[in-house]
């Protein structure tokens, strides 16, 4: 009996929320709270997805947060990560897992194929915003771009449009940031099979991203002032290996071409 009446009440309250748009924030919050409490009277069976998240959060809270009060106290006030990491969205390559980054250590961008587009004020504001914030506000010291094996994004870059497949709405536009890597790999490794070419492209695309990083004026400035280092990484989860390298850029001293003592008549 109680179930039915509270279910009815929940439905009516939800209807109120839907229909009365002029309700102010306070009233809305109170109604939502009522709904939660009513639901709590006869809790619905927990969805497996929710259970997964409850378990994950509880583990973190008990084994990490509660055991490091000074750290989390400090982090609540602000962050000062030494690393900025670009990694792929692939579920298998979270840098927090494979490189054990704890909260506060790495400012982390994750996108398809871990790409950094070149500086462009009209587009790619998403990546631009992360770099702007990381360099100017957080003053990170290292930017690490991590590629990985069997990357779906790179595979798409290498496949399309030659495979004649229909274009995606957004994916193709994004992965074409790595087009120069594809061209380079196809030229240098034309005899290799597709899988090997993809692997080369996964690594070459990291280099492409590192080069693109330098097109951001604040990145370039901090590198020149020796406050920032650019690193490339490659996680191969098939063989269980990690490659790590540095991007170095060297400007030589000028050589003066002498004007005197040379026969200028040719």
């Amino acid at each position, binding site marked *: 009996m109680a179930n039915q009446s509270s279910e009815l009440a929940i439905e009516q309250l939800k209807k109120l929320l839907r229909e009365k748009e002029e309700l102010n924030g306070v009233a809305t919050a109170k109604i939502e709270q009522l709904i939660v409490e009513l639901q709590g009277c006869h809790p619905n069976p927990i969805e497996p997805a929710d259970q997964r998240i409850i378990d994950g959060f509880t583990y973190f809270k008990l084994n990490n947060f509660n055991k490091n009060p000074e750290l989390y106290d400090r982090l609540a006030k602000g962050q000062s990560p030494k690393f900025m990491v670009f990694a792929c969205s692939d579920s298998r390559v979270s840098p927090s897992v494979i490189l054990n980054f704890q909260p506060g250590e790495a400012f982390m961008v994750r996108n398809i194929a871990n790409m950094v587009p070149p500086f462009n004020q009209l587009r790619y504001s998403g990546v631009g915003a992360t770099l702007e914030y990381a360099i100017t506000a957080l003053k990170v010291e290292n930017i690490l771009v991590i590629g990985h094996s069997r990357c779906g994004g790179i595979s798409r870059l290498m496949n399309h449009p030659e495979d004649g497949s229909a274009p995606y709405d*957004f994916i193709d536009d994004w992965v074409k940031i790595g087009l120069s890597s594809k061209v380079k790999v196809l030229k240098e490794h034309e005899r290799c099979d597709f899988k090997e070419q993809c692997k080369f492209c996964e690594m070459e695309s990291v280099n492409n991203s590192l080069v693109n990083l330098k097109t951001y004026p604040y990145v370039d400035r901090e590198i020149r002032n020796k406050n920032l280092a650019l690193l*490339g990484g490659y996680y191969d989860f098939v063989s269980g290996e990690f490659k790590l390298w540095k991007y170095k850029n060297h400007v030589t001293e000028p050589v003066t071409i002498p004007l005197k003592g040379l026969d200028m008549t040719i």
Partner: protein
Amino acid sequence: MAIPSSISDPFASKSLPLSSSSYNPSRISVPAQITAKIEQTHLTALRRSQCSSLKASMGSPGFTQQLNNSKLDTLAEVKDGRDDIFNDLKDRFLSFKKNVYMENPEQFESLAKVQTPKFMVIACVDSRVCPSNILGFQPGDAFTIRNVANLVPTFESGPSETNAALEFAVNTLLVENILVVGHSCCGGIRALMGMQDDGSTSFIKSWVIHGKNAKVKTKVFASNLDFDHQCTHCEKESINHSLVNLLSYPWIKEKVENEELSIHGGYYDFVNCSFEKWTLDYRGTKLEENGRIVTKNKVFWS
């Protein structure tokens, strides 16, 4: 007149193989501090460009050390003051390799073939809110995108990295859940709330403007609160607006209608260590400009 030149020789560095065929868990004891004899080599390459020469210095393969029955190759220290970074990253990976990768060979073997995550997570770039840490996602669990202020732009706003990831996760990986996770003290939301229309541009402004509807709503409903509390309100408001923006993608809307896909919002408060989560109630939600979003299964853990 300097001639700028750059090199990147990705394959000069040595990888860190720990060949699984020689690994024998019962007889191995890897010491916590791996001490290594370091060899340094420098590579000098001459380019065929005018009047320029460049030096490349790369980490070189150090050595091979016998350790009981396993072989460990480690990265040699690169000589120029960044040694500690290389060593730090090396240790981090080795710790993962030893404690996680080698402990679960079947799982990693099957993951190497294909990923089938149930979740797609959209989280903020903030170093304090990695979903793998706070929600315990393990390899293979969650396809993750991280951007400033965990925003989801609308379908109409054109291509971006966020919607490329959405397309892949929903249409190719066929995830069953999308979870947008916001958090306390978000710098991006703060920038959104503090933004002035003074004509100045920046990447941050151009990006966080995707959350402007949340700002408008916050100014209306929470105008009596101080700025910090307004930001908190906006952090949560913005999550709901991102959920609505998800429905602007036809292929997402279709799957939600067919109950193949659920959309959830989450809020992590790292000051008090609490986590709230709710699910979008599609049937109840109105989708016009200022429509009310209806949620269900709201839970709060602290």
